């Protein structure tokens, strides 16, 4: 066991996957000698060579399309897109090819690829570097969308994503790349996909979040505890397909739900969870489902980004209101 940051855990998982499986290939812009703009791939090219850790031309569509071709041939490509704002040229490849070649060929061809990209705001980055458009991806059938919230889960979930026989978009919470530290054992053990993690048990209200927002969500749970409110905190971790059982089980217990995400509200993934609860958990509810999210605006640049993102105070207030309802 060693204490490390989330980005170091990503690096460790990549190295472990490459060590274990010669079919694993890492590709992207600046992933080689530079080790990636966030240093997630540092040291990999030196260790595994430029053929398996390759710097691509500056073309995101190409990176995703190469991953599809490589994966269909049986490699396990792990592509890196430097920021989520640059992922959009890959959407055509994800929607039209990666996610559906298994279905299009009725299982004859498959696409075991991973596309990694930093996710979210909060690091005072330039324009287009602070996106959290995970709901767009979670709408694509045949794709998996995974986002860790701690070094331990980053390691275990990335290993699972690379070993998964289907395409996975792996979102990495930029804001806690280095802020999150934790013990990680390099034991090569994957964590399960499609499964939510209960980070904290409680009987009064369920807080559901993913990625970097779990930091504020856990802080809110601490603050609520001081007021005598026991919050249960769920890290959804896999958004597509997501763990409905854990969500509904928790609502059955608490009867109250606050969903927290950094992405804009309308059509955000919180809406999907709220709809699920309305459809299959309504009779458990003691209060309306609440969403604490980014506003329905373009994510502001550095000076205002903190005002856009859900704060501990907003989460506490929404939770308190849910507990005081009726």
């Amino acid at each position, binding site marked *: 066991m060693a204490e490390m940051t989330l980005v170091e855990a990503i690096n460790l998982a990549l190295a472990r996957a490459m060590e274990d499986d010669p079919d694993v*290939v890492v590709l992207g812009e600046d992933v080689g000698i530079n080790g990636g703009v966030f240093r997630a791939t540092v040291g990999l090219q030196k260790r595994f060579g430029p*053929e*398996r850790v390759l710097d*691509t*031309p500056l*073309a995101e*569509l*190409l990176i*995703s*399309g*190469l*991953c*599809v*071709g*490589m*994966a*269909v*041939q*049986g*490699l396990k*490509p792990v592509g890196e897109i430097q920021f989520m704002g640059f992922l959009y*040229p890959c959407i*055509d*490849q994800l929607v*039209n*090819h990666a996610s559906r*070649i*298994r*279905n*299009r*060929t*009725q*299982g*004859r*061809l*498959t696409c075991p690829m991973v596309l990694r990209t930093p996710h979210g705001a909060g690091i005072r980055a330039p324009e287009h570097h602070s996106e959290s458009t995970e709901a767009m991806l979670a709408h694509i*059938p*045949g794709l*998996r969308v995974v986002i860790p919230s701690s070094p331990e889960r980053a390691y275990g979930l990335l290993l699972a994503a690379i070993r*998964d*026989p*289907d395409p996975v978009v792996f979102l990495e919470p930029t804001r806690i790349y280095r802020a999150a530290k934790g013990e990680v054992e390099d034991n090569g053990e994957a964590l399960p996909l*499609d499964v939510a993690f209960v980070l904290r048990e409680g009987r009064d209200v369920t807080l559901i979040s993913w990625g970097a927002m779990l930091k504020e969500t856990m802080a809110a749970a601490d603050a609520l505890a001081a007021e005598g409110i026991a919050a249960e905190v769920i890290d959804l971790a896999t958004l597509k*397909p*997501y*763990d*409905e*059982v854990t969500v509904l089980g928790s609502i059955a217990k608490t009867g109250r739900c606050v969903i927290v995400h950094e992405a804009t509200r309308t059509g955000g993934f919180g809406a999907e969870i709220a709809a699920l609860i309305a459809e299959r958990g309504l009779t458990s509810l003691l209060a309306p489902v609440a969403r604490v999210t980014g506003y329905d605006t373009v994510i502001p640049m550095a000076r205002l980004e903190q005002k856009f993102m859900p704060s501990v105070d907003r989460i506490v207030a929404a939770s308190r209101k849910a507990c005081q309802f009726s």
Partner: protein
Amino acid sequence: MASKKMADGGLPVIARFEVRHRNYLAPDGSINRPLPAFASDASLLASLYRAMVLLRNFDRKAVALQRTGRLGTYAVSLGQEAVSVGIASAMREEDVLLPSYRDNGALIWRGVKLEEILLFWGGDERGNHFSGPVQDFPFCVPVGSQAPHAAGVAYAFKLRKQPRVAVCMFGDGATSKGDVYEAMNFAGVHKLPVVFVATNNQWAISVPLRLQTGSETLAQKAIAAGFIGEQVDGSDVVAVRAAAEAAMAAARDGQGPYFIEAVTYRLGDHTTSDDASRYRSADEVQARWKEEPIARLRSYLVGQKMWSKAEEEQLAAECHERVEAAVERYLATEPRRPETMFDHLYAGLPEAYAAQRHELAGEGDG
């Protein structure tokens, strides 16, 4: 062009490029240039001829099925049969084809069954479960988006030191897309074993080539990516086959990618949903009929006494029989059960979707 009129100012030329054009058979079947070695193999030429005739017969039947409501939208190869057949004929079994939707001729040559092609165009995913070349890609419908896949496939071949070639086919319209250029650019960087084939049939639905590019040839687009681009007479199957042989030999030998622009003409509509008379004249099409590949090769073969009237009649009967048998098998194929739409979504069905599959299966209300 304006650039040609500009004074050179005494500046030195640092690079010059040229594009070759390959043609052997004239439209009347006479010989323009000494034929390549393979052309002395009468049985090979006959097999190319047979494949083109089969494709034309198959297309005719497919359109008839579409017009009578028994097939979905279909794209015929009329006039450009030499490209898909000539290219595929130079491939090895272990190579991988990444076709576009008008490359039926290549698929058939590589062993995809006619009924599988009909199933696909008839709206059944099982048509892409090729029984023949199991690693070939299915038809790519979003134009040009398979080009990066070809580069990825070729990268895998190179990484594993396999002497195999990826062959990516698309039309003239696709060369306007970033996908194609990004793939070519990467293939050039890594000298990948991939052959890009642009079937330049002059029309991208209603948009003529002159509105597609200001470039004199499509072949020269390869030069910017650092490899050879060659233009061939795409209505001369001997030229297509010869170019494909050269390209694949070079790619297999580690010399890197190759681009073939096969210049031909789409004599038919874009698809059965299109009416080409809206955007081009009957005179233009009529003139192009003089160049079409099947009559051209037949004229040559007959002139060389390599093909007889009896063989022609026998071939017609064989094609008819083969196509009719395939149609029968296609029409006899029952639709998939509805719930099977979940069966190849992921390797295993996620728990979250079990209820929906159940609902489709009529085993509950979901």
